């Protein structure tokens, strides 16, 4: 096989980039699942909404208001997750909240329906093929020489930024007081309530956090991938597989698995491209045969 070393390296870096998004998304899924016992099928849709928030803020909002300055990338990085998170809280308060007492599968079905609604509405107004996001900040244009290879600056930023956010969430959940409340609520909601922790409030907050992470991933992804109504739905299934492989037990597990599988996918893209779309699912099948609870999971 005649593949140049630099081509392999660049594919692997692109894989790491995807892996960072997998990590961000599976992290949100894992946090929501742990606290709410809901598999958030709408996670991909929230990711897509985050990207659209950035796109609309930059291109459409100024046209609507007649001004010539839109919401730039850095503001979108803050506003996008916030808006998506608030939408999530609205959904949690009005719908999801009523489903905690029935079979957990209903949470999956509800969020599946919501994902279809978001995707369908946006498909009516936007091109399925996707629209480019032109708000990439000037300081992240061009490429950086990493010593062993030259890599696009924005992609490097997105990897580093996603990892920082991942570790911030890990720190929040494992090392702070709020995180200990969160873990207590996950472990045993009734006892946590008896100790005076506002569990319903904590659940809303968790859903806000998880969904905002998806929105944040969407904003960061907007300058890289074209912004399309379908961008979330294909990704979410891969992220489900990532979550099954890692097991939903630990936050660090979700981060590590996401990164590793992104790298693996990048490597497969170089050596055997036809398998690139399915390699993660195949790994999932193998992991299930070997360790049904997932690599970092506990059987519950």
């Amino acid at each position, binding site marked *: 096989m005649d593949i140049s070393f630099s081509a392999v390296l660049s594919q692997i870096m692109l894989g790491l980039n995807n892996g960072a998004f997998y990590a961000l998304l599976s992290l949100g899924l894992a946090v929501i699942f742990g606290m709410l016992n809901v598999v958030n099928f709408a996670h991909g849709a929230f990711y897509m909404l985050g990207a659209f928030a950035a796109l609309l803020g930059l291109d459409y909002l100024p046209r609507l208001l007649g001004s010539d300055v839109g919401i730039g990338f850095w503001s979108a990085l803050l506003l996008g997750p916030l808006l998506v998170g608030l939408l999530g809280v609205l959904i949690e308060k009005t719908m999801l909240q009523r489903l905690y007492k029935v079979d957990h599968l209903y949470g999956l079905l509800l969020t599946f329906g919501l994902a279809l609604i978001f995707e*369908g509405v946006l498909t009516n107004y936007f091109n399925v093929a996707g629209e480019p996001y032109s708000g990439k900040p000037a300081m992240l244009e061009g490429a950086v020489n990493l010593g062993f290879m030259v890599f696009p600056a924005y992609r490097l930023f997105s990897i580093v930024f996603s990892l920082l956010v991942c570790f911030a969430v890990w720190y929040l959940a494992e090392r702070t007081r709020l995180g200990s409340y969160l873990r207590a609520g996950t472990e045993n909601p009734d006892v946590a309530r008896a100790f005076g922790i506002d569990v319903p409030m904590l659940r809303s907050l968790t859903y806000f956090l998880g969904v905002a992470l998806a929105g944040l991933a969407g904003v960061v992804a907007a300058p890289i991938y074209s912004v399309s109504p379908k961008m979330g739905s294909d990704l979410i299934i891969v992220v489900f597989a990532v979550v099954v492989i890692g097991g939903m037990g630990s936050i660090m597990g979700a981060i590590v698995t996401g990164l590793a599988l992104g790298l693996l996918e990048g490597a497969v893209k170089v050596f055997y491209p036809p398998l690139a*779309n*399915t390699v993660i699912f195949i790994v*999932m099948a193998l992991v299930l045969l070997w360790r049904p609870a997932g690599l970092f999971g506990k059987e519950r």
Partner: protein
Amino acid sequence: METLASPSASRLEKRVNHPFVSYLPWLVAAVVCLAAPFLIYPVFVMELLCFALFAAAFNLLLGFGGLLSFGHACFFGGAAYLCGHALKVWGLTPELGIVLATLGAGVLGVLIGMVAIRRQGIYFAMVTLALAQIVFFSCLQLPQTGGEDGLQGIPRGMLFGFIDLSAEVMVAGSKIPLAMYLFVLTLCFGGYWLIWRTVHSPFGVVLKAIRENEPRAISLGYRVDAYKLTAFVLSAMLSGLAGATKALVVGLASLTDVSWHMSGEVVLMTLLGGMGTLLGPVVGAVTVVSLHHELSALGSWVTVTIGVIFVVCVMAFRRGIVGEIAYRMKRSF
């Protein structure tokens, strides 16, 4: 905790004991199905029949086994591709093509089932969804499947080598593909009858016991995994039968048939009609497929409508149409 499927349907059946009464629904169904092609476009009726069988096969797993598979499209669509290929390229007769495709779906069911039943509940749904994606991407990338275009122009061929399934006959003033219609009707009724028998067999009872309380079923000595796998494979094969028949009816096997949207659709049919009821999936399938035809001019608003129905069903209507009727009759009688 509210369980996934309401047991109301089985309670309802206990009052039915006279042999004639128990055959009455079958007679009504037969009459309706024989009259339908004169009133509605026959190909549409045949498509309805296929989707009704698909939903009923799915419900065998969800409603009676308590297992939510989010990847059933891979059996439906996979069999459609296999049947199409067997008829178009290998030149098999339609009945052989359908048998082959059904067996193929069964093999796929064994492979996927063996991996998926290692996890329960929500994980089961995610695992089946992910595994079905392997089948989807295979259908997209294999040279035999026609990529984005799918397999087009699948011939109906000669049943048993001498009955022309594409022939149309004038019956009572309307042109009807009579042989094809009767063939499809036989297959779908046969499949549905098999589901009905399975649910009322000792096997079906054990399956329901596992759904209600798995640890207890284990403690009673049942090999739970074997039962689950059998139900999974049976459901996969019947879904395959439905998919292969559908490919024969419309002459097309496409990526839509294997995509996760189709998996979601069959979940909706079952949820809307009523999980764990025998008639529910049929009602749900007819409703959803008709909705698709009625709203097809609206483009992606169909997706929105489907999503809204999902949300409404989950929030306010968890028993489904048939489940709700059964529940109310029980209460008012």
